[in-house]
């Protein structure tokens, strides 16, 4: 609750600053706009358009990281671990659906459908499933590698030689 309030406060302050700068810009260029309504309408309108667009992105939390490039689905337990910060990585098969790269944002969804967070990928690397260590499993929020494989067995058919991608993720902004 407190973090959401702080986030709202910061976003509002940024918006206020943008508004002040917009007014200052018009004041500074007042002489230019005195040259005619056309100048004011075209140049002023374009600048206002850019500012409104930036403000919309700022409010939606899509700045500075941009829009989500896709979805990552989690079981209820996995999603809960991500939300509580117990898990810092996500292990997914490398083959199949395209996975986000470093710096990209994804929607984190429960496999039942609802989105529960936005995640930014901070690192991504490949590994053979058989090479996953106990530490890798713990980072992904599991007690052991066998628990990790077992949890995923219902969703993917894995063999030890399979290649997996380990995505290190960070939750963006306040909880939704």
């Amino acid at each position, binding site marked *: 609750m407190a973090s959401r309030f702080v986030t709202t406060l910061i976003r509002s302050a940024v918006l206020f600053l943008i508004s002040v700068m917009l007014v200052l810009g018009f004041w500074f260029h007042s002489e230019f706009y005195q040259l005619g309504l056309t100048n004011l309408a075209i140049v002023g309108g374009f600048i206002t358009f850019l500012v409104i667009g930036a403000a919309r992105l700022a409010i939606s939390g899509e700045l500075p990281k941009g829009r989500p490039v896709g979805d990552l689905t989690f079981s209820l337990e996995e999603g809960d671990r991500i939300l509580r910060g117990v898990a810092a990585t996500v292990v997914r098969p490398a083959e199949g659906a395209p996975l986000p790269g470093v710096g990209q944002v994804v929607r984190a969804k429960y496999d039942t459908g609802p989105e529960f967070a936005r995640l930014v990928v901070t690192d991504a690397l*490949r590994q053979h499933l058989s090479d996953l260590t106990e530490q890798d499993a713990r980072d992904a929020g599991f007690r052991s590698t066998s628990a990790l494989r077992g949890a995923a067995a219902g969703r993917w058919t894995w063999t030890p030689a399979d290649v997996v991608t380990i995505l290190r993720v960070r939750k963006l902004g306040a909880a939704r």
Partner: protein
Amino acid sequence: MTHATIAVAAGSLVAAWLIALVLIRGRRRWLQTMYAACGLAFLVMGIGFVGLEEGFLDPARQDIVLGTLLLAHALTAILVVGLIHGETLPRRRAAAFLLLGPVPVLAVFAPAEGWTLETAYDGNPVGGYLVLCLGIALAETVYARLTSRLYAAQSFWLSLGVVALFVGGPIYTYELQALGLPLSAGANVAAPVALGTFALVILQADPLPSSSRIPRGPWRGTGSLRAGEAIVFEEARPTYAIHTARTEAAAGRPTLVVARSAPPLTASGLGTATIPATRHAAVRLLTTASEFLAAHPGGLVVIPALADVVARSGRLRAFESVIRLKHAVKDTHSSVVLSTALLTDSERQNLKDLRLTWWSLPEPRRELDAILSQSFGSGAPRLLEAFCRAHGLRPDDLSTDHVPALIAFLQRTIAELTGAVEGSGAHGLRVQVEAASSVLRSFAALDASEVARGRWPSRGAPRTDEDLLVTAADYWKGKEMEELFASADAVSEREPLYERARAVFVEELGDAGEGVLRTQIARLGKRPEDLEKGDIVRIADRATVDLATLADVVDLPKEKDRLARQIDEIRVRLERLVREDA
């Protein structure tokens, strides 16, 4: 002071800071020089403007400011083109430097023709030249943005910088002219913004730091890889890629390995660079390899972790960097090795579509198994398992580098059997072991090109467990063979713990590893032959702490990272020894 002079003076300070930043942090000499020249031109231009406005520069010296204005714009265009094409610009696009040609001509004719700072952006040759320079820079960035996924982010920032120069230069001047306000001629208030974006691009695409300093200069020796080729090693693990890097470096060839992490043992002449956890990994891989090959024509770059670049930057960017690298390799008569390890099937197919030289290589474990099978039949996997147990290795980690240790293991096993098997049986076993050792040595001596061309043992030898034929050798030696396998198991169990721990330390830390182990044993107050399982656990704990302390002292992050991984690996392997011994 006016608002304009304050703004330009502050901008000049920012420019000076940016120049210092790029000179200190950058790793591309040629681009750093270009950036410094461009930045200094803007700096001198700004100071000149402030001097003229504030009266501490003789108005007659306006020609200096006009000259630097021309120079700054020409250098901006060359710098922007250089930031997109990298260090190949002087060689492949030297025509870009022709942009500097008109600068002295225009500067000389300016006083006579009445081209002044106030009319710099007017419809005269000076104005046309300035706009042309910015136009070339903008066109290049827009072209890069449209045609390259790899340089998409960089071209956006470059476009932003060039557009800022347009707005702060000609457009702002026209606006002031329209309003009838005094012109801030000779200054571009957006210069720090442009220099900032250029600096960002330089640092985003900066080559990765390399662990060793190989003297610059061409290499003219003969290696096992053809010059001017990008070769793909199709292998499940980057065993042959790393092996090739080591052998080529040992032969004196300047070699750089760009990997997820540095190989544990580095030969002299072998540089290593670590792929960073950033979406610019593909660009940085390209600049690192290109810079290295430009500095060491005829050299070799080995990329065992292309899959990590794909995971971090995306498939399109990673493969575009491979294509560009292919051209860099041709230009410098060098070689690049790319391993397909950890790439998915579809990614391998995409890589194949790039029409690079393709070498299919075997899994060393399977080949060692096949060689042993030729002599020991279906019991070969048992021998390999026993060897892996004795050395705390996972079967997947086996490589041709382990062949000497494997031969020594087989010979120890035979020695153990001396008492149990006698006469022709013992002699037959010794002959079989010698024969297997000979084939193992021959196989280990093959380089990647020979392995790619030749017949693999696994393809050549029929496995006795795959068909039901019983060979004569299996028939008459059956009993001795079983004893050999039992002996191998026993050797792996009875081999002194010291020897097994020593193998782990030496394989991870080189010859110094034995010294580290002996120090730890001495601290326990024991002799090597008295080691017990509990001692191994304590040694693992203490070695972890000691080596971690050592790693903390190391200032180089890459070396620190390498040491940390070696420490982890030693610990894991020692724990595995204890677990398997239990």
